[in-house]
């Protein structure tokens, strides 16, 4: 993500009667015309809402009547209300399960796909990529059927192996791992492809040099792949964590945050507070906590990317 400045564009020499002032004015108008549509959308639906959400978060706005200023009351509630703390804890738990699992799975499969020892690599790549095009909602439906305690094929197979999983979505201990599993299944192809791009950028000559030095496959992995994939891994870890903080779709569909709030995440809570309970002020405060957490993670991501670019020369 290079932040290189635009190269100076020197306007072509003006020919004829058009003065430099007129030319500059015209260029300014052109710039404005090109920027106007996109900037209108961004200002109205990204920049202004950021300010509006901050303002709302200090009020008791409910969608009715005039909102009253309540100071930091909403933020106090965010960090003291046991339900909200529970939701933040659940999001943390979701993240702790999701991120390592999806990153390890993606990395292993990317390495397998990159291995010359694997026949039909193209076919495997296509097959393993497929979950990516399935929406989390549709993934949730399919997994719900597979895991159905009465008619689910997967729960039946597991039963034959002697494993009784019961009704996982009604089980406070298993509901969270289940919704995490669905997200891992849907999202790993994305990270896998990012890893694959990273692995393919490692020059083959390095592997050959290591082989000359007598390094076996494991030693080559440790001394070439691991260090050179460090930045990609760091980057994937951060974007996976950001994605985990936004967990919503499959939870909304499958558990609604239950059983016993065991899958109630921060975004589920924002949806509930904002659109069901109409506590807009409070929901905005919670949104801001999410925003700040995401911002901090993004800054880490920037640092990683910047370091990667410096390393690359």
């Amino acid at each position, binding site marked *: 993500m290079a932040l290189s*400045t*635009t*190269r100076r564009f020197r306007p*072509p020499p003006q020919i004829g009667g058009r003065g430099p002032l007129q030319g500059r004015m015209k*260029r300014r108008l*052109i*710039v404005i015309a*090109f920027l106007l549509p*996109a900037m*209108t*959308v961004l200002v*109205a*639906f990204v920049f202004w*809402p*950021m300010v509006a*959400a901050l303002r*709302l978060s200090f009020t008791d706005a409910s969608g009715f009547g005039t909102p009253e200023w309540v100071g930091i009351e909403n933020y106090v509630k965010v960090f003291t209300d046991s339900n909200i703390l529970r939701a933040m804890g659940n999001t943390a738990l979701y993240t702790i399960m999701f991120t390592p699992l999806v990153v390890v799975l993606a990395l292993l*499969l990317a390495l*397998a796909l990159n*291995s010359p*020892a*694997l026949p039909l690599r193209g076919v495997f*790549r296509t*097959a*393993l990529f497929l979950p990516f*095009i*399935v*929406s989390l*909602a*549709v*993934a949730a*439906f*399919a997994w719900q*059927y*597979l895991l159905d305690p009465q*008619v689910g*094929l*997967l729960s*039946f197979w597991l039963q034959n192996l002697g494993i009784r999983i019961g009704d996982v979505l009604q089980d406070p201990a298993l509901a969270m791992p289940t919704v995490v599993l669905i997200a891992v*299944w849907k999202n790993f192809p*994305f990270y896998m*492809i*990012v890893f694959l*791009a990273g692995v393919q950028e490692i020059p083959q000559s390095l592997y050959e040099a290591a082989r000359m030095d007598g390094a076996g496959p494991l030693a080559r992995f440790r001394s070439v792949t691991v260090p050179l994939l460090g930045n990609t891994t760091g980057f994937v870890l951060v*974007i996976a964590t*950001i994605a985990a903080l*936004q967990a*919503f*779709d499959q939870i*909304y*569909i499958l558990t609604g945050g239950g059983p016993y709030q065991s899958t109630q995440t921060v*975004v589920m809570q*924002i949806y509930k507070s*904002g659109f069901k309970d109409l506590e*807009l002020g409070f929901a905005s405060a919670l*949104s801001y906590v*999410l*925003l700040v957490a*995401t911002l901090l993670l*993004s800054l880490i991501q920037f640092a990683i990317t910047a370091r990667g670019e410096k390393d690359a020369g």
Partner: protein
Amino acid sequence: MTTVHSRRRLTAAITRALFFAAMLLVALLILLPIVIIVFTAFKPVAEVNAFPPTLVPGAWTLDNFTRIFTDLPFARLILNSFVFAGGVTLFALMFDSLAAYVLARVDFRGSRVLLIAIIASLMVPFQATLIPVYQLVADLGWINSYTGLIAPRAADAFGIFFLRQFFLALPRDLDNAARIDGASELRIFRSIVLPNAVPALVTLGIYTFVNNWNDLLWPLVLTTDQQMGTITSGLTMLTGPNGIIPYGVMMAGSLIALAPLAILFLVLQRRFIQSVAATGLK
């Protein structure tokens, strides 16, 4: 000597076969949810709820497909999904590329500040501004409308940034020559820069279309009228928390939901995967 050699070759062959078998098993397991969607969509209700469960239908039927069109206004939902995802993609490509063009190719005061603001807004998750965005769209009277669905996403910071990076890398000789010949910026943009940016536009287009086609939260909050939902948000109406889940109908709907993306993927496979690799570098 030769026996050692051939034994080593045999070991290598066995390792390869085991590796292949393991990957095959993993791939089949990973594809199981998709396979179950396809097969269940064509199963009669009795077989969908039969025990022991089956994978491949014993009898094939289209009942689930006829039912999804009566249980939900499904034809309308399909249309809405295309209008929403297609509309967002079309506008975003247009608006993003216009903005990216001047940010990459024209030097003007404030361009750097603007670029930094755009990059900073990349970090704002949509969920965090959902409430004020919803309020604004509601105040504009756009609830339950295509305008309301599309407008907030008609331009997007990531798209602008992504295209700007691509435009920066395009050689400048052609547009400078055109400028000296007196061509207008719009003309240079339309007939020199855009045609050369087709790969980037396709990449961004796939990314935008897939994200919006699959999105649940935004259509869910914006559309209260069932006629205005998308396939993704509409299918959630089939599930009641305590009701019996009509799996067959749900899988038929799911199959229709993923079919356009599956076709797009199979046709544009390389581009599709490149799009992920490129946008993953976000």
